[in-house]
């Protein structure tokens, strides 16, 4: 008997196509995010020029065939600066959020597992959460000073309570499951239980939250750099590119328009993608 072989698309592709059909806006967001990450990673290969190369003869060129998005007041190519700016944004937001996840998850799990630590840790997290991100970040920068490293610490500190709360809630619900009681009865040590049995079971909501805080980190990075407290020139960063743009706005409106547009597009991409992801993973949200 000859069996006919039916060609089927791999499950991952079917999954992506189904997602695209149900969440068209989120798919557009996903494509924007993917493009942003690719551009950031491949910056040295895709940027047409050196982002820091000054040439006063070309200063404030309008967008055209030679400089697709024009040049700034020092004659530097805007497109190349935007591309390298994407790299800086991605680096800072990823590192700071990962740092926030690691510290936050550890604190949350520990607070939920060891009852006597619950009140001090979680009250502190609640207080930190009640302040807007920029206040928390500014406090850290006021103490440590500006610069990329301190900016990463500042954004990470803001993200710690966000992840501590999620990890805390998840651990509280997981710790009552029978299999945890079983490993406790078997005599497993606390460290092993937390690492091997609790962590793997609380990680899914942490990942969803991860996609939702990345755009906030990108925005905070740009905001603080715009205030002159984050990434310093000449390093190209979208926020610091906007810092002095108004002074030249009459001669070169593209200096004001493009960095903000890039920021808007990427944050929009992350927000719509994250929203779609959250709804697709949580069926209760579908009717909202």
């Amino acid at each position, binding site marked *: 008997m000859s069996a006919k072989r039916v060609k089927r698309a791999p499950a991952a592709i079917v999954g992506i196509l189904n997602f695209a059909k149900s969440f068209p806006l989120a798919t557009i967001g996903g494509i924007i995010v993917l493009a942003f990450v690719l551009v950031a990673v491949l910056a040295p290969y895709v940027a047409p020029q050196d982002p820091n190369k000054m040439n006063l003869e070309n200063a404030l060129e309008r967008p055209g065939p030679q400089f697709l998005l024009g040049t700034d007041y020092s004659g530097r190519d805007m497109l190349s600066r935007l591309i390298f700016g994407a790299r800086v944004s991605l680096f800072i937001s990823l590192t700071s959020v990962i740092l926030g996840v690691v510290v936050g998850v550890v604190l949350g799990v520990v607070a939920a597992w060891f009852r006597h630590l619950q009140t001090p840790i979680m009250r502190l997290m609640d207080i930190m959460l009640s*302040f*807007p991100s920029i206040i928390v970040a500014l406090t850290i920068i006021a103490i440590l000073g500006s610069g990329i490293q301190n900016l990463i610490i500042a954004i990470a500190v803001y993200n710690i309570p966000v992840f501590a709360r999620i990890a805390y809630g998840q651990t509280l619900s997981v710790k009552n499951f029978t299999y945890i009681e079983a490993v406790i009865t078997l005599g497993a040590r606390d460290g092993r239980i937390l690492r091997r049995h609790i962590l793997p079971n609380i990680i899914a909501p942490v990942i969803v939250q991860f996609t939702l805080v990345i755009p906030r980190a990108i925005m905070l990075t740009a905001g603080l750099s715009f*205030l002159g407290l984050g990434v310093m020139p000449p390093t190209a960063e979208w926020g610091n590119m906007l810092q002095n743009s108004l002074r030249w706005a009459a001669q070169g409106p593209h200096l*004001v328009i493009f960095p903000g547009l890039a920021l808007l597009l990427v944050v929009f991409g992350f927000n719509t993608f994250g929203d779609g992801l959250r709804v697709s993973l949580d069926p209760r949200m579908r009717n909202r």
Partner: protein
Amino acid sequence: MRQYIIRRLLQVLPIVFLVATAVFFLFKLIPGDPATVFAGEQASPATIARVRERLGLDQPVMVQYWRYLQRLVKGDLGTSFINGMEVIDLVKARFPNTIRLAFISTILSAFFGVSIGMISALKRETIVDYLLTVVALLGISIPIFWLGLMLIYVFSVQLSILPIAGASNWKNYIMPVITLSAVSVASILRITRSSILEVMGEDFVRLARAKGLKESRVVFRHVLPNALIPIVTVVGLQFGYMLGGSIITETIFSWPGMGRMLVVAVNQRDVMVVQGVLIVFATSFVLVNLIVDIVYALIDPKISYS
């Protein structure tokens, strides 16, 4: 109800105390000698020593902390390192400007957010709803400093119809209020839409319709009051976040408020002003949260005060 308010008020004090304590000890970590900053880099060692003594910096840290708390209770936030003015006087001059801006922005964003959110919910899954959803998503994604710059570019640089900076008349309010409200309108719109849609599915709404009530009466009498609780929470939170947003907005429009003062002080490393502004901001957030909780208890019969 009175007991509830008193109990919540008493919870405010430990938080403000904790924040003040954290601010004091965190700022002790700053490298460099505050007495040198205060006296100036060129000051002689004798002058620096005198300043150190005058500021009480020659005392052990715990003594300094105790004096700091004593001063704080009396409302004394210290003296600016840069211009020698009392921080409390600087705050008194600027705080009303910040509050006024935040208050107007909150009221306007609540009005527009709730109205547009209702339209979006009532026109669910029509082209209007889709458009408003995209606009809301753009609204929460827009960098407010860019929005501010674009407004200045269009209305001040190109059209010359609105002033770039200052707070002297009503025209000065237009662009800062729009900048500060954009994100809030979008957030309130989203929560209003989802909250109304949730309530619309309830049995009592179906009953109201079955009774033959007019749609407007169903919406305003039955749906909106029940959808209000999450909306009030978000509006309250927005007021707190407006105070945070004021940092960027005030810097863009040279608004004479606390946010701009904080940025300038951080740039100049004027520790006393930074400490003072942070404590005032923190107290304001905690008080706003308290007021939201009380309003919450007032409008939701399900929340008990005991």
